[in-house]
Each structure stands twice: as structure tokens, then as C-alpha cells.
């Protein structure tokens, strides 16, 4: 991964907008770390769901099916 993994400014902006608060310097890295964990979870679950429904790979339907539970799981 030659380039920076994610646009830090964008993440900061997004979280700032939702929290209506400023972020400390490296908080966004941890937030992105958490986001990576979340994505891992989503894709794992989606892969399981899509396999269960007989689809190949990860489909959008399986992602939508799974994301609700994953968001709940990652709710603070």
C-alpha cells in the first residue's frame, strides 16, 4: 500500500460533522482502525450470508442484510 491507506482529512471531517466536536491529532487513526475492524466484520458476515444463500463472493444484498447486525455490534 504505497499511498496512505485512507484520506485522513475526510475521515476527520466526517466524524467531526457527526460529533459536532473537534478530533484530537491521532484519534482519526484509531477511528479508522476501528472502521477497518468493522469492515472486516461486515465482509466476513456478508461472505457467510452470501454463501448461505448460494451466491458467489460478496453480494450487495448480503452486505445490506448483514450491516444492520454489524452496526449494532459496533455500537458503543
Amino acid at each position, binding site marked *: *500500500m504505497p499511498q*496512505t*491507506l*485512507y*484520506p485522513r482529512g*475526510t*475521515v476527520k*471531517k*466526517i*466524524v*467531526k*460533522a*457527526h*460529533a*459536532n*466536536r*473537534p*478530533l*484530537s*491529532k*491521532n*484519534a482519526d*487513526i*484509531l*477511528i*479508522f*482502525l*476501528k*472502521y*477497518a*475492524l*468493522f*469492515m*472486516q466484520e*461486515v*465482509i*466476513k458476515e*456478508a*461472505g457467510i450470508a452470501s454463501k448461505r444463500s448460494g451466491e*458467489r*463472493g*460478496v*453480494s*450487495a444484498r448480503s*452486505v*445490506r442484510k448483514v*450491516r444492520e447486525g*454489524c*452496526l449494532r*455490534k*459496533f*455500537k*458503543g
Partner: protein
Amino acid sequence: MPRRRRAIQPIQPTPGAKSGRSRNSALDLPDIDDDEPTAPRFSMPLDDMYDDDSFNEEPPRQSILAPLPEYDYDNGTVQSIEFGRRARSEDPRLDRMFNKRISEQYGELNDLTINGEDYELDGNFINRRGTLLPNDLLEQVAEEDLDNTTTEIRALTGRRDGRPSDVDLGVFGDVDDEDEEPTFRFTIPPRMHVPVEDEGDEEDEVDMYNETQRRLNETIIEDDEDVENDTRAGAELVNDDETAPVLADDNETGPFEIAGWESEPDAEDDDEDLQAYRGEVSAIDRSLQTPAPETPAKKRAGRQRKTLNISRFGHEYPSFPAATVKTLANGFIKSQGSKTKISKDTLAALVQTSDFYFEQVGEDLAAYAQHAGRKMIEEGDVIALLKRTRQVTDSSTVFSLAQKLLPRELLQQLRMEPLPKLRRQKRKRMETIREEDGHE
């Protein structure tokens, strides 16, 4: 004698007299008389005409000949003038025919172009040529031979080029078309579609193949008709320049197409499946291989300008970049061992999901910070969140997670930046951890 006569009469005379009469009067005289004047007329012109038109295809013409008089009657009103011309042409022929032998006549037809035309014009249709294209008649004689060859080639190759010529002769074609030509006319537009359909749909190709076979049969008959009618000749004279090259091309393509159609449908079905699989893989590969920035750049531009989301606090924020989502998701999918890659729909769903996620995280972190009595969201809040979701436990620390998931650059930043602040932040972290530990 009388006795002999009596004896003879019962036996011989009755049959003898009858046979003698029949032999003398009916058989000999009329046959000789008929053969001299009439027989050459009917047999010769007809045969000559057929031979001239098409060498190999006599039977279909004869079958077609019967309907011809009908056409003549139908067209009679239109071509009344032409009939007069026929009679003129016929008369000189008959004179020449009688005077000269058949072989000589045949040669004369070729030699005398104008007369040859007239002879060819003997058919009802031929007269039209003269009427329709008087100037072309002179040119036709040389071209007629070509036309005959071309028509035969067409019949063999299934050419339908004859149709356009028929179309050109509107009046004549209309009357004739009622029974037979509707098929011809239909064939014309489909031909135009043929090349396109051949490339595209295989089912259509099968249909087209059947149609082409039909047309082959039809065209053979039609070509015969056309030759006899000579309607073509007039039309073709105009079209020959155009049709001739086209014919050559089509002749080349025609047989190949037909052969291809026979063999293709089965083979192509398999090919389609294979291609479909290959196409999918290739498409996915493209999406993956092609620099992701293209799609994200477009989406970013579109979303940042169009769909700047507004949080409940009234702040605008962009949706999470799709490129990042894609790289992340593909990395995770690879790590899971499946080789499939993310489709557009999946990516869109993931982007939406990540938007939901950041909204949720933002609210959670805001709540944590507020609970801690701070305005700013700090790393400790995020760590607290991770801990609460059991992602940071005693066995897995933040750094171990970061080492797994984050690239070295970010990991170094995580490590490096805290260092100068290590004391403060570690205190804070330790404090928070201790507090939570205490609570637990």
C-alpha cells in the same frame, strides 16, 4: 374376285381400309404438314428462350411458365402497347425461323443484338424492357449473358440481390407479387438486417439460416422467373453496376455465413457460457486492476458537489471515499481466501454501510467525550469505544490490532506521535483504563 373379295373383305378390308385411311390421312399428311409450319415455331422459340435464360434450370421454368399467362392478362391493360410490339417482334422471328434452321436461328440471336433482344422480349416481360428501358435494350444484349450467369450464381449462392430489381419494377412486381413475391419482398428488408443479426444474436442466426435456405429455394425459382420475365434485366441494367460488386462480396460471405450458421449455434452456446464467465472475471479484474482512483475520483466529484450529506448538527460532510472502501474490502476478501472481487453494487452498499458506521461512531465518540467533560474527541475515547466493543482486550491491544490492519505509515504515526506525549497520554490512557477497570 368376288369370292376373293368376299373372302378378303371380312378379314382384311375393314381393318385394312381403316388403317389405310388413318395412315394416309391422319398420320402422314397432318404430321408432315404440322411439323413443317407449326412445330418449329412452338418448340423452337420456347426452347431457345429457356436455353438462353438458364442452361441448367429448365424444369422450374416450365412449371413457372403456366402462371405467366395470368400475369400477362393482369398486365395486359398496362402493357397493351407492348403486346403490339410483341406481335411485331414475333412476326419477324417467325419469318426468320421458318426461313432458317434452328441452329442458325440460335446463332443469329446472339449475333443480332437488337433482334436477340426482341427474341428475348418475346416473353411477356421482355416487351416491358423495351418499353421501360428502350435505350438500355442496346446495352442489355451484351449484359444479358452476364445477367444469366449472375442469376445462376445468385441461385447457387442464395443471392437475393434479384429482389431489389423486382422492387424497381413496381407495377409489374405488384401484380405478380400477390402469390409468390410477398416472400421476396420480405426477404429484402431482412437482408439488410442479416449482417447485424449475424453478429449479434445466435437464435436469430438460426432463423436467418432457415430463411436463407428458404430464400435460396425462392431465389432459384425467382431468378428463373426473373430471367424469363426479363424484368430483372431492365432493373438490373440500372443496378448491375451496384449489384455486381455487392454480389461478389455477398457470394464470398454467403457460403461462409451459411457454413458458420450450421456449425456455430451449438459451438457458440458453449462459447457464450465460457465468454460469460470470462467476461465476468475480466470485468472484475479490470475494476480491480484499473487504478481505483478513476471511479473514486468520479464519485468523489459527484458526491462532494451533489450529495454533500448534512449531519444532524448541520455540518456538511462527504461520504466515505469508495476507493478506500474498495481497497479495504478487497484486502479482507483476499485474506478470507475467496478470489472473487467486489462488484459495483456491493461497493455501493459497503460505502453506504461505512457512512452509517461513521455516523454511529461520531455520535458515540461525541457521547464519550461529553461524558468525559471534554469538547475534543481524543484517542482515549476511541480506545474506550474499542474496548467496549471487545475489540481491545487484554489479549489484543490497540497496537496489535493496528499492526494487523493498518499500514506501516499509519502505525508509525500511531507509535511515533504519542512518544513525545507519551507521558501525558499514557497517563490519560492509564487513567481511563484504570477507571474502567475499576468500574468493571
